[in-house]
């Protein structure tokens, strides 16, 4: 496998890899009998590979609030902004529900944790 990736000369190995891929996932499916379709490799188009926690296909494209409004500084001090991304139980809401993009979710998460430490947000329970 390593040798094949190193040699960039022939495109033949690449094409054989591609043709191998649909074969490989199907084999375990055949072996183990009726597995659910999720195990099959890359799904064609559709939701773009986003497993939305068991939902069917389309979810309207959620946009990252921070990217849209161009909010750059996510500070632990603005509790009102942070509280929007915290559930009733005090847990941080996952980004697949809020639609926040990854870098902003990371910063948001750090800010929420800092706010929790300084008693601006609760660790558990309703955010007053």
């Amino acid at each position, binding site marked *: 496998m390593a040798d094949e990736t190193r040699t960039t000369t022939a495109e033949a190995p690449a094409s054989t890899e591609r043709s191998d891929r649909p074969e490989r996932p199907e084999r375990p499916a055949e072996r183990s009998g009726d597995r659910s379709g999720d195990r099959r490799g890359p799904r064609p188009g559709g939701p773009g590979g986003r497993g939305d926690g068991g939902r069917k296909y389309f979810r309207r494209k959620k946009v990252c609030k921070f990217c849209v409004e161009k909010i750059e500084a996510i500070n632990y001090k603005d509790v009102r902004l942070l509280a929007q991304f915290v559930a009733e139980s005090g847990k941080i809401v996952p980004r697949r529900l809020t639609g926040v993009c990854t870098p902003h979710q990371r910063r948001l998460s750090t800010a929420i944790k800092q706010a929790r430490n300084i*008693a601006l947000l609760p660790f558990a329970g309703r*955010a007053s």
Partner: protein
Amino acid sequence: MNRTYELMFIVRPDMVEEDLDKLISTLESQVTTSGGTVKNVERMGKRRLAYVVRRFADGMYILLTVEGSGDMIHELERRLRVTEPVIKFLTVRTDEEDKRLDKIKKIRESRKKAPPAAPVETGGEGAAVTA
């Protein structure tokens, strides 16, 4: 020595104003003796705490923005830990974040200027002349 820190601490709510002033001035003098500078002191007032801290449900929040070295912060935190009225504190280093924000602002400003007019450094007259 160019590190900027934000030090937020909570003081028990039943503290007297003048004691609070004394505490803050002690901290400020500590900062200056260790060779730093106090940029800002903000008293955010009494707030309800999100959870009970040392049997208190409210607290006075104070935010101190200082500039200095890590050792200075070490010393400040040590003092805060020992001080009885202070029930919680949090130090955040902010210079990297400020640098990043400045960079973004500059990029945005340069983007705003570039498309509408030719990027001429002289004023509007220069642009009119060239146009």
